[in-house]
C-alpha cells in the first residue's frame, strides 16, 4: 500500500469544486440567504458610514484650507516697498500664494459683510492695505505669520491667533475619533460576516466529518467551502454597492446645489465611489473566503 495523496489537483477537480460550490449554495438555501443578507446589511452600513466619514473629513480639510494670514502693511509703505514685501513673503518656504487687497477693497468687503452702517468710514478709512497669504499646509499658518511679522513693512500679521490653533487641535481630535470609528466599524463588519459564516459552517460540521471519513483530503473539502464564501461575499455586496453608487450620485448632486453657499463641497462622484466600492468588495470577498477557511479548519482534524 502506497502512502500519500497527490497534492496537484486535476483541472476537472477544480471544475467539480466550482460546480459543487454553486450546488451547495442552493442545497443550503436558507442558510445561504441568511449569510448573504448578513453580508448585505453589514456592508450597507459600512459603506454609508464610510461615505459620510470621508465627506466630513473633506469638509474639515476645506475649513482648514480657509485659514489665511492677513498681513497689514504699514501705512507709509511705497508701491516698491510693497512689491519687495510681497517677494519676501513669497520666498518663505511655507507660503503657497499671496494676494493683495487695498484698504478700499477691504472696506468694501467689510461693508458687504457687516452692513451699510460701515459706509460712515468711507470718509476716513481706518483700515490697512493687506496681503492675504496662504500656506501650503494649513498647519504652517502660525509659523508663517510669525516670520512675516519680522519684515520691516509689516504692521501686523493677523491669522486669528488662538482660534486657528484651536481649530487645528479640534480637527486633529475629530480626525482621530473618526479614524477609530472607521477602524472599529471595519472590524465590526469583518467580525460579523466571518462570525455568520462560522456559525453556518459549524452547523455543517457533520458533513465535513463524513467527507473526511470517506477519504477526502482537507483541500478537497475546503475548496467548495472557500468558493461558497467567495460567492456569498459577492452576492452580499451587490445591493450595498449598487445602493451606494446610486445614492451617492443623487446625494452629491443635491449637496452641490443646496449647500453651495455654505462652503460645503462633497467629494466628487468617481473619486469617492471607486475606492469605496473596491473596499467593500475586498471586505466581502476576503472575509467570505477567510471566514470559510478558518471555520472549516476547525472541523478538519478528524
Amino acid at each position, binding site marked *: *500500500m502506497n502512502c500519500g495523496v497527490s497534492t496537484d489537483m486535476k483541472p476537472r477537480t477544480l471544475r467539480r469544486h466550482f460546480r459543487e460550490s454553486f450546488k451547495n449554495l442552493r442545497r443550503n438555501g436558507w442558510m445561504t440567504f441568511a449569510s448573504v443578507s448578513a453580508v448585505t446589511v453589514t456592508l450597507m452600513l459600512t459603506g454609508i458610514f464610510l461615505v459620510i466619514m470621508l465627506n466630513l473629513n473633506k469638509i474639515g480639510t476645506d475649513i482648514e484650507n480657509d485659514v489665511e494670514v492677513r498681513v497689514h502693511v504699514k501705512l507709509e509703505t511705497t508701491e516698491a516697498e510693497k512689491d519687495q514685501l510681497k517677494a519676501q513673503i513669497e520666498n518663505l518656504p511655507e507660503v503657497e500664494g499671496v494676494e493683495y487687497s487695498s484698504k478700499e477693497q477691504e472696506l468694501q468687503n467689510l461693508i458687504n459683510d457687516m452692513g451699510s452702517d460701515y459706509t460712515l468710514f468711507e470718509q476716513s478709512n481706518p483700515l490697512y492695505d493687506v496681503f492675504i497669504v496662504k500656506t501650503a499646509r494649513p498647519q504652517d499658518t502660525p509659523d508663517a505669520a510669525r516670520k512675516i511679522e519680522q519684515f520691516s513693512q509689516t504692521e501686523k500679521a493677523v491669522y486669528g491667533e488662538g482660534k486657528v490653533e484651536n481649530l487645528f487641535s479640534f480637527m486633529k481630535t475629530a480626525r482621530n475619533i473618526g479614524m477609530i470609528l472607521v477602524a472599529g466599524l471595519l472590524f465590526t463588519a469583518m467580525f460579523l460576516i466571518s462570525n455568520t459564516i462560522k456559525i453556518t459552517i459549524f452547523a455543517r460540521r457533520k458533513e465535513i466529518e463524513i467527507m*473526511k471519513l*470517506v*477519504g477526502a483530503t482537507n483541500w478537497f473539502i475546503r475548496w467548495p467551502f472557500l468558493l461558497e464564501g467567495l460567492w456569498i461575499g459577492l452576492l452580499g455586496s451587490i445591493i450595498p454597492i449598487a445602493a451606494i453608487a446610486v445614492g451617492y450620485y443623487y446625494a452629491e448632486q443635491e449637496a452641490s446645489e443646496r449647500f453651495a453657499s455654505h462652503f460645503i463641497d462633497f467629494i466628487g462622484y468617481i473619486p469617492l465611489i471607486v475606492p469605496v466600492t473596491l473596499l467593500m468588495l475586498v471586505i466581502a470577498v476576503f472575509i467570505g473566503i477567510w471566514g470559510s477557511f478558518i471555520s472549516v479548519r476547525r472541523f478538519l482534524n478528524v
Partner: protein
Amino acid sequence: MIDMQGVTKKYPNGVTALSGVNVTIKQGEFVYIVGPSGAGKSTFIKLIYREEKPSSGTVMVGGINTASLKQRLVPALRRKVGVVFQDFKLLPLLNIYENVAFALEVIEEDPAVIRKRVMEVLDLVGLKHKARMLPTELSGGEQQRIAIARSIVNNPKVVIADEPTGNLDPDTSWDIMRLFETINERGTTIVMATHNKDIVNTIRRRVIAIENGRIVRDELRGEYGYEA
C-alpha cells in the same frame, strides 16, 4: 493486511472498549466480528480506518501504522478501506447518486468512469431507480444499501462493514452477502461486524468473538456461537 498487537482503546470518558487485542487478518480473508451489544466491535472497526487511534498497542493496515500516520496521509489510508458505517453516515444534502459518487470524486476519477461505476453499484444493491432521491427519502434498509454501495464503489483493498444487514430483511441480507462473497473472491479483504446468526452459521468463515473488549474466540470456519 491488518495486524493489531496489544491494542487497548480507552475512550476519553474512561470506558475501556478494547483491551489487549492481538489479531492478524491476511489479505483476502473474510472475517466476522461477533459479540454482544457494547462489546467493542465498532471500536475494533474504527481502529482500522483510523476514526479512532489505539490508546496503546499498534494497528497496522497494509503496512501503515495508523497511530503514527500523518494527518495528511490519512485520506490515502481511507481510500484503500471501504467502510459501511453502523449509522450509514450519508451526506444529507447530496442525493443517492452524489453520495456514492463522492467516494470516486475524492480520488479525482474521470467523470465518465464515475457515472458508469456508480450506476453499476447502485444496480448491485438494487437501488438504481432511486439515484436522484435524497437519503431522507429512503427507508432504513435502502439507506443501508447505499452505504454498502459507497463502500465498494472504488474497489477498495479492504471492505469493513459494521452491522451491514441490521436494517435489511433476510432476502436482501442474503443478496448483500452474495455481493460481499463475490468481492471477496476477487481478493478483497472483508471484515464484518454482525449480529446475524443465520448468516454466520451458513456462510462459514473466520469468526472473531469479542466480549467486554477482549477477544474470547477466533476460529476459522467458526459459528456465531451465542444461543438464546
